[in-house]
């Protein structure tokens, strides 16, 4: 299994850049290596959406890699392959859920999302991953003891159960688990955006 912590580290980003270059040149082994490195993270992301069944999780994974591999040439910063493909994965999952809510047949109106994302991702300031992980651990520590912290611990810290499985274990609805995980992510994202804003403010 790919080590996603390593995959996101500075040396891992260099590896990603090398693999993206190889894949863009048509090397089959580079495509497979990217798939093996990032599939676990894409899988875990999709499993955070408790309303997706296993079949749909499989579909999200497949669509994500197809879109990413099909748009590799548009990736302006190859070392950012990780966050780029995870953004694609999140959009695939959200799109699938939105279509279901609307009662509509899945369509392909996000066909150009990868092209848009490529340029945006390349302009973000870059706090170190170690610092970001430390921030996340602090956010978890600061959560009051209770169902949200337990859910976060089971999903993100232990990492073995899907959101659906956590819902079954805790005896609560699937949507409640998704909501807890999204609330937690929002706290993490707020901290990240604060850091991005600080760097933007300093950079002028």
């Amino acid at each position, binding site marked *: *299994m790919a080590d*996603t912590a390593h995959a*996101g580290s500075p040396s891992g980003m260099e590896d990603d850049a090398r693999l993206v270059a190889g894949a863009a040149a048509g090397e089959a082994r580079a495509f*497979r290596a990217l*798939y093996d490195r990032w*599939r*676990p*993270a894409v*899988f*875990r*992301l999709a499993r955070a959406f408790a309303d997706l*069944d296993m079949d749909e999780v*499989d*579909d999200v*994974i*497949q*669509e994500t890699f*197809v*879109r990413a591999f099909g748009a590799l040439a548009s990736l302006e910063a190859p070392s950012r392959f990780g*966050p*780029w493909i*995870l*953004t*694609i*994965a*999140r959009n695939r999952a*959200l799109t699938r859920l939105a279509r279901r809510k609307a009662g509509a047949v899945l*369509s*392909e109106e996000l*066909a150009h999302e990868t092209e848009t*994302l490529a340029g*945006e*991702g390349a302009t*973000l300031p870059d706090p170190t*991953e170690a610092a970001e*992980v430390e921030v*996340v651990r602090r956010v978890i520590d600061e959560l009051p003891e209770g169902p949200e912290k337990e859910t976060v611990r089971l999903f993100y*810290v*232990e*990492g073995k*159960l899907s959101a659906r499985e956590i819902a079954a274990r805790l005896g609560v609805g699937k949507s409640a688990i998704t*909501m807890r995980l*999204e609330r937690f*992510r*929002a*706290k*993490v*994202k*707020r*901290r*990240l*955006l*604060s850091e*991005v*804003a*600080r760097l*933007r*403010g300093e*950079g*002028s």
Partner: protein
Amino acid sequence: MMHLTDVTVERLLDGTLAAADARALAEHLARPCEECEAFLASRDRADPADGRVDMVLAALAGGPASAAGNDLEYARIQRALRAGRPGHRLARLGALAAVALAVGVVALKVGLDRTQPGRDAWDGLKGLAAPAVPLRLRFLVVLPGDAGEPLRLEKGASGAAVPARAGLQFQIEAGRQAHAALVRVSPSGDGEVFWSGSVAPGAPLEVTAEGRPAVYPLGGLSGLQRIVLLASPEPLAPDRIAAAARALAPPGRVSPDRPGLEGLSFDVVEVTVR
């Protein structure tokens, strides 16, 4: 006080937010803000910051063994890339619906073993070590329309209840060339082979009979039905299929370690007929 909006996030990420505004925003977001967090949790589109957040979260822990990739899934990704149509699976369902409508409810109970004798003749190689065949069995539930209405096709989910008036249309994916058979296994361990043939990596195989979509009718059945896809690089002889059916009889747990399954790969779906 500067709360987050779509415009603010967009300008922050693309670097067009004024430096003074960026500093004010940094100060604001450094402290918990329920309004901003609710806004972030409710966004229905991911932005590049989401990718960063998810990458860091993924670094917190490893995942289950099932998180790792597999050859069959990777082969599907390659196929889709070659086809250049990421949504091909759904499009294919549409195509199937069109074909099914054209032929009507054919309700074929096919038996290629019987209609094409000798097609998969046993060659005496039983017992040779056989590498696993990555397999996936999926199905559609075909529901006849009421009073002149068209057929309805629904994606099948293993374990679901289906009406007896429905039929099942099967689709097979294999990660390597193999001989395969679809078998309905009864609780007594009897196996009814209703399709057999060759499978190969590539586009998913829609089960057909004489070139038409074949629908397995559920009329006359009730309760739990277990449908098994068996595959082996070696031809599948009737006695081998029978032994596998006994090993996979419902409602027993499906386990690859059971006697009778040596050298075979399989996938299983179940429906409860009501």
